[in-house]
């Protein structure tokens, strides 16, 4: 059921997701850096094919959460399963295989700055998928750059690209492996409103095209409105409210309400 609760962890998703497959399951997740506990017992599920937006102020552990999902950070307590596999228990090779189902768009795009755009996209194809056929590689690169509208930038270096272009290329490099789950770390931060809207619309368009489930970390409400099937609001390392954009917009909770003003 769609619910809004004040300072209560949400454990249920929207009504239409109850019968859908859970792709990411998180229960009572805790993560600390030294004495500072960043995640204080998060519980959430991501359903197949949905766009889940995680809202929250800076420093509330949103980025830490998706880095735990990607296996880039260890967590101390709790359950974190991707397609039923507990991330913490996976061995190096198993984690590598699990990561092939995940895509991660970093805040900066994280393009390899010593490589051209073509080489950035070629890198995962040859290293992860082991492709060797030059024609197939070129075909895939061209298709993906066409999807993000940057076919002309194929031979440019990352330093020659604008912030928005870098995000698009980062998205293309991630999607070229056809991940089943996308993790977006503040995809529109640092972009002007027009480019932010373009990126948000591109995310929805590509989600539909490639049937991807996504976790989107943001505090950009325009991005949340365009992309979210469901929103979870996070504070002090746990979720305080959840529901669709329209439902949360009516929330009486002061913190939730402050995002929608």
């Amino acid at each position, binding site marked *: 059921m769609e619910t809004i609760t004040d300072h209560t962890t949400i454990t249920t998703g929207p009504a239409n997701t109850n019968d859908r497959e859970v792709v990411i399951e998180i229960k009572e997740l805790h993560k600390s850096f030294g004495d500072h506990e960043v995640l204080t017992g998060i519980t959430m599920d991501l359903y197949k094919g949905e766009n889940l937006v995680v809202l929250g102020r800076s420093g509330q552990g949103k980025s830490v959460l998706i880095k735990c999902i990607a296996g880039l950070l260890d967590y101390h307590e709790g359950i974190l399963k991707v397609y039923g596999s507990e991330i913490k228990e996976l061995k190096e090779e198993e984690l*590598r295989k699990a990561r092939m189902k995940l895509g*991660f768009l*970093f805040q900066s795009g*994280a393009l390899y700055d010593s490589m051209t755009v073509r080489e950035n996209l070629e890198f*995962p194809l040859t*290293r992860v998928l082991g492709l060797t056929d030059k024609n197939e590689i070129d075909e895939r690169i061209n298709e993906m750059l066409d999807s993000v509208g940057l076919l002309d930038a194929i031979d440019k270096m990352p330093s020659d690209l604008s912030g928005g272009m870098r995000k698009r290329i980062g998205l293309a*490099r991630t999607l070229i*492996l056809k991940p089943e789950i996308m993790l977006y770390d503040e995809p529109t931060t640092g972009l002007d409103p027009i480019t932010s809207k373009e990126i948000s619309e591109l995310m929805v368009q590509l989600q539909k095209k490639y049937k991807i489930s996504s976790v989107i970390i943001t505090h950009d409400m325009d991005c949340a409105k365009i992309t979210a099937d469901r929103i979870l609001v996070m504070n002090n390392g746990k979720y305080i409210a959840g529901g669709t954009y329209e439902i949360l917009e009516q929330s009486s909770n002061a913190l939730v309400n402050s995002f929608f003003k």
Partner: protein
Amino acid sequence: MPAKFISFLKDQGEKVGDQVHFLGSFFRNTFKKGFEWNELIRECYLIGYKSLPLVAITGFILGFVFTLQSEPTLKAFGAENYLPAMVSVSLIREIAPVIVALICAGKIASSIGAELGSMKVTEQIDAMEVSGSNPIQYLVVTRILACTFMIPLLTIIADALGLLGGFTGINISNKVSAVLYFNKAIAALDFTDFIPAFIKTFFFGFAIGFVGCYKGYNSGRGTASVGMAANSAVVNASLWVIVLDAVAVQLTSVLAYH
């Protein structure tokens, strides 16, 4: 005070553990399928070829200055005939390998530390990891191996140019033919001068590559940590070169002369 000391020991123990783990990752990934040959060749070019002018000039000047400085002393004893032999033995056994390694610790370890550190800060290494690629195999194995193979080659070049520098130095005040000079320089050398000195340069190269990669790969997240990674890479790599040299000299004297 004891609590502080215990905490210090614990920190140092953790650091050593991290380095051993990193070393293990290097060896595991060196023999894994999908070796990055193209990247190894590129790194050999960047580390070897691009350091060539610096090493060549340094080698030549070392031989030249060493000759000019030693000549008056030898002359005082009427032993200037031994100058080519002294230059060649000193250069090849000790001076050229250590100076080349220290120069490369400054140039290469800092560059690797800064490069990998900045890749860490800009999340490029995380991006490789999360895509299922193998950043250790691509970034670390290639750089360490390139250093291990290129430092010995650079040392041989520095040896040769050092001898040439010595020849130039001698001919400033005397007239010695090239044939005579090089005959005397080479005749003074035997395998126990050349082989141990050559072998130790592989260890110098490995230490430079390993320290640079370890410091860069494990740098912090802020921009300041890039500078710190580069700086500590130079300091630690230089220290390792000196320590390894001391061990190598001791081992050589035990194995070769007893």
